């Protein structure tokens, strides 16, 4: 009989689990504070104040610091979370109970699973080696993200169906159709990017996210090289995260609340957090692919030293870019009006998809020409 698990492996597995919890904590905290940012930014854009009353009892009396935190509404996410937890839980009598309870979980799990392959920085070790900071730096990272996030649609579709209400059902159907439509444009928009990075003669190959971030070190960021891909990817990202102007599944003016009309208390809270977790992860992935990841500005080598300070600064810089993109998501939401459903479908199928195909073919030709020239010069 073989040994159950080698001695050293136990430690490694425990360490991985610990790291996983830290990552979940970081992303969930960012998701929580994105909700606060959404409320604050929308308030500023509409000339309001936003949440500025919530505070923990003892923090309030710290001079300067306490009132500032209160004014910024830093404790609002905590209060919101507790509110969801302590609300009366109502289950409508006409729902399919099993799938009704299952749907929020199915919506949250893919949002949290995609973060496993997300690289967020580099570790410079003392012996000069450099390794990527990620839970699992898979060679097929971007495909993993697509695969897992495509499972998220089940949560919304099941929520709409199991609620047994017309509004929820329409929301669920709209969402499934929208997500399937925009996945195509999203995948196609990334093909030229990988074609460019993994062009013949380059050292990179495969679909790894960390390789694509490192390819932008000290050179052009990929959104400068491939602006059209970046634009299509960004639009598809908005559609996949169900954010305005693409929030068809829950457009409150015509569907009450869309797929979560029949949901209340903590079950609604899970849907809510899943949406913001999607935004956080989506922003991070856009940063890695198009905005240079943890590397400094385009055409400038990283100014930080190659030690642990550099690692920290790199992660911080990555976070700053991600937070800017989250702000961009919120900015767009409070600026643009919502599309009509047929406009969404029209944009997806007859605008973005052909555009992504043309983009792919143009870059295919460019890469081929460059490759041929390189071969001729040898």
């Amino acid at each position, binding site marked *: 009989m073989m040994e159950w*698990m080698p001695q050293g492996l136990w430690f490694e597995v425990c360490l991985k689990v610990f790291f996983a919890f830290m990552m979940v904590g970081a992303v969930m905290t960012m998701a929580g504070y994105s909700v606060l940012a959404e409320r604050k930014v929308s308030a500023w854009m509409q000339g309001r104040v936003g949440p500025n009353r919530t505070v923990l009892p003892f923090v309030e009396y710290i001079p300067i610091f306490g009132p500032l935190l209160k004014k910024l509404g830093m404790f609002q996410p905590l209060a919101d979370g507790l509110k969801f937890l302590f609300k009366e839980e109502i289950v409508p009598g006409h729902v399919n109970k099993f799938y009704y309870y299952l749907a929020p979980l199915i919506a949250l799990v893919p949002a949290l699973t995609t973060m496993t392959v997300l690289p967020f920085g580099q570790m410079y070790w003392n012996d000069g080696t450099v390794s990527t900071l990620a839970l699992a730096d898979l060679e097929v990272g971007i495909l993993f993200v*697509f*695969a*897992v996030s*495509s499972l998220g*649609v089940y949560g919304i579709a099941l929520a*709409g169906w199991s609620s047994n209400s017309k509004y929820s059902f329409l929301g669920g159907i709209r969402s499934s159709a929208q997500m399937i439509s925009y996945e195509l444009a999203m995948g196609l928009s990334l093909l030229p990017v990988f074609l460019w990075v993994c062009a013949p003669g380059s050292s990179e190959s*495969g*679909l790894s996210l960390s390789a694509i971030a490192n390819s932008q070190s000290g050179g052009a960021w990929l959104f400068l090289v491939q602006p059209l891909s970046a634009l299509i990817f960004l639009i598809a990202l908005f559609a996949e995260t169900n954010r305005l102007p693409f929030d068809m599944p829950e457009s409150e003016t015509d569907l009450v609340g869309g797929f979560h009309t029949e949901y209340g208390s903590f079950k609604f809270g899970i849907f809510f957090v899943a949406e913001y977790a999607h935004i956080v992860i989506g922003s991070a992935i856009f940063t890695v692919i198009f905005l240079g990841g943890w590397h400094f500005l385009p055409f400038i080598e990283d100014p930080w030293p190659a030690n642990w300070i550099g690692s920290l600064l790199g992660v911080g810089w990555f976070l700053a870019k991600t937070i800017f993109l989250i702000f961009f998501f919120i900015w767009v939401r409070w600026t643009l009006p919502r599309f009509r459903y047929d406009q969404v479908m029209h944009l997806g199928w007859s605008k973005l998809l052909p555009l992504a195909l043309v983009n792919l073919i143009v870059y295919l030709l460019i890469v081929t020409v460059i490759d041929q020239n390189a071969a001729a010069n040898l």
Partner: protein
Amino acid sequence: MNAVDLLFWLFAVLSVGGGLSMVFSRHPVSAAMFMIVSLVGVAALFVLLESFFLAILQVLVYAGAVMVLFLFIIMLLDVGPEAGKGKLSHFKTGIFGLLATVLLVGILLTLGNSYDSLALDQSIWPELSESKDGASHSLPFSTKVSSFGYGLMTKYMLPIQVSGFMLLAAMVGVIILSKKTPDREDLK
């Protein structure tokens, strides 16, 4: 029995159990969900074989795209548990079940025999570098994405072209079938 074996049995039970539950569940939505469980279980088995690319394709194509459409149609048509009742009599169903069982047992026996005849250190797959077309490039068979791509573009070029053409034909066929002619009377 070590941890990997335990994971293997877990996911094997998940995929086979999911498949059986899919067949036996009365409600079409439950059947679709069990099929997803089964597909994800098979994907996990691929991961245990360190074939991440296949696992991801399994989830991306089957669980993420094909089954969404299945579920979509089931929900749109609002088929209930009674829709699963076929028109076949018990006798016919029994015969088909028997045939399927014989087929399954036959396949299992054949596979089991061929598995025994393999030496343990011998790989089932030929090295790509040994094959005719891959000779110039010595890229050994591996689970890496690039080796998949290399194989598809060299040794399996014809199959990929043929399957691509078949998919194109299917797509054109669907467009023609679903296209509404403005007025059928004009065509006559």
